[in-house]
């Protein structure tokens, strides 16, 4: 399963510039979407509520997403680069399968739907898959980070 690189949503670029999206925040979350989602892979979307066809709640998956941990906005491979990075994220299918996995989306949590801003997405696989009960899905962040500013 070859995953696509994290792609920054168009509006996220604007929001990073006007400080709506602060990459030094530690309130980012990651959610999973199905192949039916027309929004997850649409770089024109702005907030998490504008995306459809999230993975169904239950069996180890929560529709509120999973919190990223150990987020950093720090110097990258050289002094001329900065990177946004976080620890790997793991879901465990429990009591049933997690069905239809295709996209992962990173977003900044907020107090209201309009404040839950999309940052970036990845197409995890070219064909959706179901994770059977008792197994884990691990999103492995690259050694160079999630995003780099070169």
């Amino acid at each position, binding site marked *: 399963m070859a995953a696509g690189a*994290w792609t920054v949503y168009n509006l996220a670029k604007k929001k990073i510039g006007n400080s709506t999206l602060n990459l030094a925040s530690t309130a980012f979350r990651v959610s999973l979407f199905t192949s039916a989602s027309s929004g997850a892979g649409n770089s024109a979307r702005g907030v998490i509520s504008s995306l459809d066809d999230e993975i169904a709640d239950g069996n180890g998956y929560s529709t509120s997403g999973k919190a990223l941990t150990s987020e950093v906005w720090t110097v990258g491979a050289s002094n001329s680069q900065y990177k946004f990075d976080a620890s790997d994220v793991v879901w465990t299918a429990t009591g049933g399968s997690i069905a239809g996995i295709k996209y992962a989306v990173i977003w900044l949590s907020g107090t209201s739907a309009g404040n839950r801003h999309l940052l970036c997405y990845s197409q995890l696989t070219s*064909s959706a898959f179901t994770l059977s009960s008792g197994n884990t*899905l*691990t999103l492995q962040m690259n050694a160079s980070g999630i995003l780099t500013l*070169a």
Partner: protein
Amino acid sequence: MIASFIVRLLDADGGLLAWAEVMGKSRPQGRPRSTPFLAQGPTQFVIERDGMASGLSVHWADLDVARYSALMTPCRVQVGQVMRFDWIEPVWMIKGAESDVPLPQVTVRKPVAIGVPVGGLGVLAPT
């Protein structure tokens, strides 16, 4: 080059009967991007659903290239059965040759780790 291919056993409607990850040899032929898929040995399918097996879809997921290949003789399969399939000829994978190959969703019964490549905020994004 040895690569991983996802092979789905399908019924006539493109429904999934079984699937297997098959290590195969590919020999990319340059432009247009094409390669024969040569399995390293027989493939064992654990049948997940009763039905009449009528074809295979071979998916090179890393490149998202797929090809449908009809079975010479359709056969009935039953859930729980293990079906051995002997590859007697290569399946030609050609980028863009077929756009409607059935690739029904598979259920993975082992831990999955997906490495996501770094994305770029600037024009000099690393590859």
